[in-house]
């Protein structure tokens, strides 16, 4: 994610990606909990499958705690035989509704943006053909 050159457009893209990640990380975290409870490292490993969500691992816990304070997730310390207790997170009913609302909004946003980007994609394809 980090770029070393000083091209202004690259710097701007980096900033934009940071904002994009900030805005969508909560939904991504809620999505990882959709199928059941998970502990911190499990959530992080799930997120790391998508490169844009490769964040410092310690930053996930404050977000989880904020979601918990808002009532969207619940947590519980469980000593499941791993040698140490783990904090498991799960979606609450309000969290499930919130995740669905966010997912719907995200889909609408992505569809709208895709429709706007069609000319850019066509131009890229045309450029490739020409070369």
């Amino acid at each position, binding site marked *: 994610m980090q770029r070393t050159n000083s091209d202004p457009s690259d710097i701007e893209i980096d900033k934009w990606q940071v904002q994009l990640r900030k805005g969508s990380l909560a939904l991504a975290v809620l999505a990882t909990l959709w199928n059941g409870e998970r*502990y*911190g*490292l499990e959530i992080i490993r799930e997120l790391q499958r998508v490169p844009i969500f490769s964040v*410092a*691992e*310690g*930053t996930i*816990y*404050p*977000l989880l*705690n*904020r979601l918990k*304070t*808002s009532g969207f997730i619940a947590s519980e*310390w469980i000593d499941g035989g*791993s*040698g*140490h*207790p*783990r*904090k498991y997170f799960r979606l609450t009913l309000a969290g499930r509704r919130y995740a669905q609302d966010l997912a719907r909004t995200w889909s609408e946003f992505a569809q709208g943006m895709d429709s706007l980007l069609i000319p850019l994609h066509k131009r890229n394809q045309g450029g490739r053909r020409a070369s």
Partner: protein
Amino acid sequence: MRPDALERYLQALRRELRGLPIEEVHEIERELRSHVLDRTDGDQSEMKLLAALDSIGDPREIARINLQLRGAADISNAGIVETAPNPRHALTDIGRALLALMLSVIGYGFAGCWLVVALTKPLAHGSRRLVAAARPQWRYIPFAGPPSRRCGGAGTARLVDRADRSADRYGICRYHLPL
């Protein structure tokens, strides 16, 4: 192996988390401790431990995000953030309050003094007012015609009304002319 690497990390984090309730700080520590144990998967070698701490991120940054998100959650819940007492902040607040009190006392003192002076000055005999009033302008008008030392001589009566004339101690007429 340096078993205190995790403790040093958590100590640095604790320092940066001053202001959060102590229970929350303990919970954050517990979460990260558990995370490191998961990350190292029982391998307590120095390399594994340092790699796990590195993947968590800089303690200052983690503390900053914790404080930031904690603040955002409190605002969204319209609650009041209960923070640990901070003597430095308390002293600063007391200093500001004393400064405001002192400035207001000085301001009211000045205003009171001016009011008292303004009210008493007109009553005092032979005093001058605080604000200089427009004084009548006296003009010496040379007499027309033959010299006369009596006020209201010939040639002057046409210029001004009699009531506005007066003679000074030398008998020279002065005429009070409105500006």
